């Protein structure tokens, strides 16, 4: 069967690609568009390392097919910093040592940004449940949760 031709917007750029039916959005991002910041930890939607937003909605890109994104808008970790300026969440993760190995970090940042866009003043419990779809095996989540809480506070005051 012929490949699908797909035109989409990724991190604000218009992109076109061809993909097989069974290729996931994660496969396309990593292998075709060479955006390897989204990670594959499980390919079953359980670890959240491949989190991206699709038309503003948080999704696991391993659970979306490449051919489903025609005409749609995708934002990945690579689009989070603006020029030389890191997103406040990125900056806070660095300052608070909210990462150890860093493999889950892109997914956590994308998911946390998505939360703060919906809820600028989340409680600790709301943060913990929103991020429950992202697995981290190194940190015990403590510093991640604190970084998100502090960033939310900083952004509200800004």
């Amino acid at each position, binding site marked *: 069967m012929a490949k699908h031709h797909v035109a989409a917007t990724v991190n604000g750029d218009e992109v076109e690609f061809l993909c*097989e039916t069974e290729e996931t959005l994660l496969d396309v991002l*990593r292998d075709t568009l060479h*955006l*390897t*910041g*989204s*990670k*594959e*930890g*499980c*390919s*079953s939607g*359980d*670890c959240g*390392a491949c989190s991206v937003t699709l038309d503003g909605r948080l999704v696991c890109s391993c659970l979306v097919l490449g051919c489903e994104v025609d005409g749609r808008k995708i934002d*990945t*970790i*690579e689009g*989070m*910093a603006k020029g030389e300026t*890191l997103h406040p969440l*990125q900056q806070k*993760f*660095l*300052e*608070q*040592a909210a*990462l*150890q*190995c*860093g*493999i*889950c*970090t*892109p997914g956590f*940042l994308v998911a946390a940004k998505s939360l703060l866009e919906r809820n600028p003043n989340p409680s600790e*419990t709301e*943060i*913990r*449940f929103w*991020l*429950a*779809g*992202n*697995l*981290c*095996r*190194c*940190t*015990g*989540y*403590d*510093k*991640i*949760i*604190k970084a998100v809480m502090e960033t939310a506070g900083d952004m509200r005051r800004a």
Partner: protein
Amino acid sequence: MAETNGTTNGAVLDIPQTYVGTRTVRPDGVDKVTGRARFAADFNLPGQLVGRVLRSPHPHARIISIDTSKAQALPGVKAVITRDDFADQASELIPAGEMMMNYRDVVRNVMAREKVLYEGHAVAAVAATSVAVAKKALKLIDVKYEVLPHVIDVVEAMNPSAPVLHPDLFTAGVEPKPDKASNVAKRIEIAIGDIEAGFGKADVIVEREFNTAPVHQGYIEPHAALATVSEDGTAEVWVTTQGHFIVRAHCARLLGMDISKIRVTASEIGGGFGGKTVVYLEPLAVALSRKAKRPVKMVMSREEVFKASGPTSGANIRVKLGASKDGKFVAGYAELRYQAGAFPGSPVQPGVFCAFAPYDMENVKVVGYDVVSNRPKVAAYRAPGAPISEFAVESVVDEIAKKLDIDPVELRLQNAAREGTKAAYGPKFGPIGLTETLHAVEKTNHYTTPLQPWQGRGVASGFWFNIGGETCASLTVNEDGTVSLVAGTPDIGGLRASLAAVAADELGVPYEKVRPIIGDTGSIGFNFLTGGSRSCFSGAMAIVEAAKEIKADLCRRAAKLWDCKPEDVEFSHGAVRAKGAAAGKHTPMTVADCAKVAGKTGGPIGGTGRINAQGAGPSFGTHLVDVEVDPETGRVTILRYTVAQDAGRAIHPSYVEGQFQGGAVQGIGWALNEEYIYGKDGKLQNAGFLDYRMPVASDLPMIDAILVEVPNPRHPYGVRGVGETPIVPPMAAIANAIEQATGVRFTELPMSPPKVLKALRERGLNTREALRSGNGKNGHGKNGH
């Protein structure tokens, strides 16, 4: 927030410590928050092929034949490998950090030979032009098996009538030498004093049997490797590993190549916890590339990670502990049966050594058995072996405290190992911080906060040896006075930040001017792997040596420039200074000043530390946990958690806290949910993150971390390893808390909802009446104990 009971700031070394002990931003951080950092699966080469592994569907079977002809004939298939592509290896035990290894078994684990020994055991591998072709090729490989009876459980595997995995395996360490092969690879024993006499003096004795389930390290990044072998036989490998020098050594040995011809680059590593200290895909990728003459990339699926890479042992344990009525431990006995997986080599020896290590006891005997069964070969997992035996001992310690009505922290303080205590496994401890961690926990308001019905509070301590080992690191002073730092142990959670801080303080240069990298195997001398909590401990020692070399060289250069005697020049407070007869006659030169005139004074400036680091200091920790048990569902919720651990000296407090917190949470998973579940067919039933339930953010509270600092006198900065001890206490601390909440002593891990619910039902504790009366098992005493 964490609090610091620091005692050593600036006291260890006579140099200003601007960065050591502070929370610097990690030099590799920006790449990790922007998605730029390259993990193993992020590397690609032009013309690369996709490598895939055919794995055994059977837990135990003889391989009658493997026919790869149809697969090889499939268009797009460029190479197929089987056991025939690996020369057999002689049996030889080789120390591998905290574990032992045998190349006879390594070659059989990476590719099955006579038999497959577990579901998921590699049988063949292909390299093809696409994933689709590779998958199709695997289906075309015809393997004929003679299915054999299998055994999964460790106790069943020890039964004389159990199916035997290895016909040439005779139990080592027993006299007379057995004449019949069995699944018991070895028996080990340590003993001090006279335990019979010791138990004779006991006023109270508790004896219990425990069972723990195998758990996986659970790193989020699956194993991955990219290899390219050129026509001249040289190879390059990019891989996620805790030790790229070890990968190089294994590939050279298994594939008959010169070590110098293999260059291995450690990618950023997405978690390891011991599980990435061995090889799985690496020799296959190199063998496939050598055959195909094209780069080959291999990435495991999560299912493959669970089925074919190392979990740690499950175990069966008996513990007997005796105490006098005033609370002195008079005798301890333990019997440990550890699953090794398909090949010998469980961490039963460290389990034996650690069992009673936190306590000063005169009479101890511990016996351990290393037992094979039809499961994946275990790999190291954070303090390998210790969490299992110490779970059992720390549970029994709690029971003794209850029986004697002594506060569990006080009981531990009364028996705690101190400086000068002779451990049952041999050495006499130097300065150690166990009592300090117990006092630290006692002083928290966590310890005295009242509890509600169905809530309980538990405490447990833990011990791990830590190791040093072969380490090489270099510092180069660049032309502009900046510093390039090359280390050779993969940075798994803040190593570059720690070493850069040490280098900056040693040389008196700003932290931001030190750029640390993890060099490939061609750019720095041999390094043993990142494991045993050694990378910061040993790396900092090597950096101190490298800096010494630079400082001595700069002094020689300055003496020449200043035309004075070498003994009239010293390096202090970040600069070369004249002293003695020359004092005050010359302007001090910083490292940057020296760099400017390097060409005139002897050329490039640099130093290398090449050491076999000795003097690792043991780290003790104590954990305090509050739980709440839901009597209707059996779910245990962690309400509050405090870790106190002796770090010796925290080079980077945030990353030390991170080790405490992360280790504690892995222990929480081990205690409450994680386990390998097998069917009667010997197949793993939960090889995915949905069914293998690791802790998620909503399961947890904050994890309070208390840094205790009792400096290690054998380290220039007082450092002890910190990474492993934090996973030792949680299981017992939680079991002790659940006991307090419910009155039920759980002796089997995980304490998952079905098991808790069943136990409550059996005891009639969650009947409607019991629930109405609000079960009051807890809450007596000032802090619930």
